[in-house]
């Protein structure tokens, strides 16, 4: 699909001329392009940048009648209250714990899956595995959590039927704080591993077959070839995705956590995002929860920039 000829030809156009007259003639000649993109720019400003302006309520005492700008400043009061509250460490522990657990399992499994699928010789078999493993990606979070609850139901679920069949006591999985993180991570792996492997499969398809031929002549077995050819071949892809994943380690799938959360598993399932939702939307503590939300997104942002910077230094692969 890529057309290399285009960029080659485009390079011959007199792009070097940077005098302002040409620039203005370009702008006026292309006025329709500005007209076209205007609604999109307006959308981004209204729905993405206005809320960024609204972040200031984190440093204010938001009073609905006075609005965002008119509310009085209170400095870092909300942040201090958050840092000193007794649930602060619980939220940090749960948010970070869930993020790391997800990363530890959810990140390598698609890579392994892609490497394995790439080795399967029968194209039909490969196609079948792909068709099946991609499917859960299209289910909604509500459906996946709903399925999990049905299967794990203490009285009717098939998992507990199995447990009792072997003489065990039924476990109320969804109500056990100890089970929450594992259920979250494993159901996520179940849903996303196939889909996440696509990008690696694409990268594997781009590896030059001659490398494999040469290695085979040199007597390298298949495991060695995977290790020395395939893995290095998809390394840039792995790194880019690792950067993105590390950068969002504190931004775990909030919707799913919210759906899986109940009063009984709160001890391990309460993360920053769900707390913001409870305190802010349900409790109407707008300023306080905006402060917590800001705390979370700043950490995310710093993480992303740091990881990207480190990666640029170490592996010369980076997002920008």
């Amino acid at each position: 699909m890529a057309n290399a000829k285009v960029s080659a030809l485009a390079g011959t156009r007199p792009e070097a001329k940077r005098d302002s007259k040409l620039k203005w003639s370009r702008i006026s000649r292309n006025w329709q392009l500005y007209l076209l993109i205007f609604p999109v720019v307006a959308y981004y400003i209204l729905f993405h940048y206005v809320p960024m302006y609204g972040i200031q309520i984190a440093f204010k005492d938001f009073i609905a009648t006075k609005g965002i700008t008119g509310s009085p400043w209170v400095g870092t009061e909300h942040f201090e209250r958050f840092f000193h509250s007794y649930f602060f460490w619980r939220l940090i522990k749960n948010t970070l714990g869930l993020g790391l657990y997800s990363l530890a399992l959810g990140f390598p499994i698609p890579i392994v899956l892609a490497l394995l699928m790439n080795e399967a010789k029968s194209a039909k078999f490969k196609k079948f595995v792909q068709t099946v493993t991609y499917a859960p990606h299209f289910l909604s979070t509500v459906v996946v959590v709903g399925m999990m609850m049905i299967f794990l139901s203490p009285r009717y679920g098939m998992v507990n039927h199995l447990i009792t069949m072997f003489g065990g006591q039924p476990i109320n999985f969804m109500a056990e704080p100890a089970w929450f993180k594992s259920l979250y991570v494993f159901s996520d792996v179940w849903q996303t591993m196939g889909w996440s492997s696509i990008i690696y499969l694409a990268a594997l398809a781009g590896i030059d077959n001659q490398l494999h031929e040469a290695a085979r002549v040199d007597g390298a077995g298949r495991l060695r070839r995977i290790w020395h050819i395939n893995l290095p071949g998809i390394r840039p892809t792995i790194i880019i995705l690792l950067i993105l994943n590390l950068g969002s380690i504190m931004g775990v799938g909030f919707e799913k956590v919210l759906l899986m959360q109940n009063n009984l598993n709160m001890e391990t399932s309460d993360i920053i995002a769900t707390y913001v939702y409870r305190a802010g939307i349900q409790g109407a503590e707008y300023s306080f929860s905006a402060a917590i939300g800001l705390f979370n997104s700043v950490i995310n942002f710093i993480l992303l920039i740091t990881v990207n910077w480190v990666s640029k230094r170490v592996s010369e692969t980076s997002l920008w």
Partner: protein
Amino acid sequence: MLLESRGDRIFNVSIYIILSLVTVIVLYPLIFVLSASFSDPQTVLRGEMLLWPKGFNLNSYAKIFQNHDILIGYSNTILYTLIGTLINLVMTIIGAYPLSRKDFVGRNAIMALFVFTMFFGGGLIPTYLLIKDLGMLNSFWVMVIPNAVSIWNIIIMRTFFQQSIPYELQEAATIDGCSNIKILTRIILPLSMPIIAVMILFYAVAHWNAFFSALLYLSDKNKFPLQLILREILIQGQTNDMVKMSTESAIKQQREVEGIKYAVLVVANIPVLILYPFLQRYFVKGVMIGAIKG
């Protein structure tokens, strides 16, 4: 072809075993739900149904189609998906096309404006307050406007425009006196049908599965999308199950509800199920195009 060593043969076999295992793990819950929805709920709840339907009947489906909430939710979701996808598509095209043009002065600045929102945002509360101030709470539009376009898809579409449509074609059209909008509608769009199909599928699935903005912004039950109704039946119903376990009739009624759950799951995913062959083919294509410039 060189001879395979013994190690390689073992390796080969293990690959097939592992992949088959993965496939079974992913497939079994899906088949179970499908079979259970056609079975007598009693057999499912007692754990007698294992793979194929037992005591085949369609009672659960009949009950669903008598359920007012599900029907309303279904039609709402169809409406949100149709209107929402249309808005998404138009916004993605008019956003991506100018950005694909090398002679579009300011493209880098505008691109930066868009991309920055991928990494930083106002967060839940300021966004909620904005929606409230705009008077969009509990309106139809809150389901389709605040997520009118996604930057990922703009990038994918822009990449497609740049790489698959020769720039000379556009230059020639300009020389012939074709305006930019005409270039877009007469030349670009007819050549972009594959990517437009990808976009429609991307956005439509997202709308079909969305529940959070409804949870956040809607309180009128007549506007609830299917996913919120599903949540009530599948998840909140389940939570009740942990607490109350009173009379005989309550237990019987509950069993009925348990049986319905499977059918609800199937009905909710019918469109996705039907579209799956297309989804798979086109989505993979979309992911590939995205990956080039990921």
